[in-house]
């Protein structure tokens, strides 16, 4: 009798999480993508009132950690999954699925009054590695460069590290701020400042063009979408396995023309 009760309890315990999740899809991850995820979820729920979607931020790593822990169905990430995370997922018999759902460009900002309008990728690298410390070395006035960066928990931090710094470390003197909004705000107040963040946030400051050969490439939609602007990236959804059921319905919606129209509305760039 006792074993019978115990086995029933065990079955119930196993079934409960599944039962609690039915009808609710959780989406978690990149702060860059939270707004986008929420807009998608709102529109999707209008059409499918039986499905509940929960979209929360916390950062790309948080989302992927939740995917590993099994506390989220979809992880939003503004960077590709790291090898360690992939290994963790495979070690629990999952086959991680990656879907790029939108495009974003990382823009470098300077104060409005800064005469420097464009920099090459090498110059940006020099500034962020701490090799270039004065604006006059890159054609500006004689003033120290105040470098703003993001916290190392940010997907944007990793993107710039990989694509601008070629994997090298940021200068120790780079100040790290929580959130792109904080960086924008700091650069807007700092005459000699330079910072970076998603193109979607850039307001009230001057966006730097990226010099490539003789060409100065602006972070415009066309340039980012076409990949001509060198500092653009994909935004991803990660799943434990191939999408199915409600999760699949939501992803199909996000990639539909209607979903991609929302991408443009939020300020990112469509993938399709």
């Amino acid at each position, binding site marked *: 009798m006792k074993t019978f009760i115990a086995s029933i309890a065990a079955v119930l315990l196993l079934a409960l999480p599944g039962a609690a999740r039915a009808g609710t899809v959780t989406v978690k991850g990149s702060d860059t993508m939270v707004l986008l995820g929420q807009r998608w979820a709102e529109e999707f729920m209008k059409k499918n009132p039986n499905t509940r979607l929960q979209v929360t931020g916390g*950062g790309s790593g948080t989302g992927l950690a939740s995917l590993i822990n099994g506390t989220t169905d979809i992880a939003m990430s503004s960077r590709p999954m790291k090898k360690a*995370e992939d290994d963790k997922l495979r070690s629990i018999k999952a086959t991680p699925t990656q879907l790029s759902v939108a495009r974003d460009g990382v823009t470098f900002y300077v104060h409005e009054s800064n005469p420097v309008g464009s920099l090459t990728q090498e110059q940006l690298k020099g500034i962020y590695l701490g090799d270039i410390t004065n604006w006059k070395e890159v054609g500006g006035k004689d003033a*120290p460069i*105040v470098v703003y960066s993001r*916290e190392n*928990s940010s997907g944007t931090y990793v993107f710039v590290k990989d694509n601008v710094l070629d994997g090298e*470390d940021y200068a120790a*003197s780079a100040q790290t*701020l929580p959130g792109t909004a904080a960086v924008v705000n700091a650069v807007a107040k700092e005459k000699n400042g330079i910072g970076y963040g998603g193109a979607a946030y850039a307001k009230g400051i001057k966006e730097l063009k990226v010099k490539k050969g003789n060409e100065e490439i602006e972070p415009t939609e066309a340039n980012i979408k076409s990949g001509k602007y060198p500092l653009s990236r994909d935004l991803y959804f990660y799943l434990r396995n191939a999408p199915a059921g409600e999760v699949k319905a939501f992803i199909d919606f996000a990639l539909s023309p209607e979903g991609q129209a929302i991408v443009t509305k939020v300020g990112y760039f469509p993938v399709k």
Partner: protein
Amino acid sequence: MQSQGLVETAPVAPRLSSAARRRQIREKVIAGIITAAAFTGIAALVLILVFIAKEALTLFLDAHAREEASLSKMFLPQVVRANRPPAFVWQPVSNVPKVSMIPLFIGTLKTTLVSMVVAVPVGVAGALYAAEFAPRRLREVLKPTIELLAGIPSVVLGFFALMVLATFLQDTFGLPTRLNAVVAGLGLALAIVPVIFTVSEDALTAVPRSYREASLALGATPWETAWKVVLPAAAPGILAACVLGFGRAIGETMIVLMASGNAAIVSWNFTDSVRSMSATIAAEMGEVVVGSPHYSLLFFIGVELFLFTFVLNMVASTWTRRVLKRLTGAGA
């Protein structure tokens, strides 16, 4: 517990009225609840400590973690870029993670130092004024007002430091970096002045009237009485106030996270940006891969913070005991 035992063994009347018995039971239940509450608090503390220590211990047990974040990598200078002298660098998210604790120690030390240098004189002087010199009416306004300052959420203080204080200091002194140890330290001072003030004020008012009367009767001025008699007599209490303030300053996260710039630089210049230990935990914990060396490292920082405050409390309480002994010895 002992007095409770006495009540039980010494009922004089053999027959208690039912009302009295009910009261006795009720009191026992209440005492039991209070005891349980006290032990729950202690148990929670111990469990938290065990949990943090357990997560940090992985750093020393796991081979991968031991290689990536060994003690020598944490505390000795390392070569981080080719052809550069070895340095202390905190870059835990990297192809080759650099995990030197030294910049974080320096950052915490600098912000805490600035905040204590500002808050201790202000808090103690304010308490001395309120306890010794302020007219009664003013004192009744002063005390609750400063205590109200303790109720301001630290995120509000951090925001104030970030937006107002930083701009003001940069415009006034022409500092190269807007967010630095001074700004964060001043923000912290706002948070700990009320703590130091309140506890110091209580200690000062607790000094017996007879001390003051004796001093004044011997011809000392009120200022001499306050400075040379009341203040030394209240020294243990004031030290306790400072330790409490220090504990708050070293552990305070939000203000430092917002106003310090969070750059892990090794320098003794107070106008450089700093990264404190608590802010590092707060900033990086959200993203870290659970179970990775970086994750254990953050817990290890938590253990270090705990050890710092623990050791400081020990030192302070020994010192307090010594001062108390000297004071009472001199009095006898």
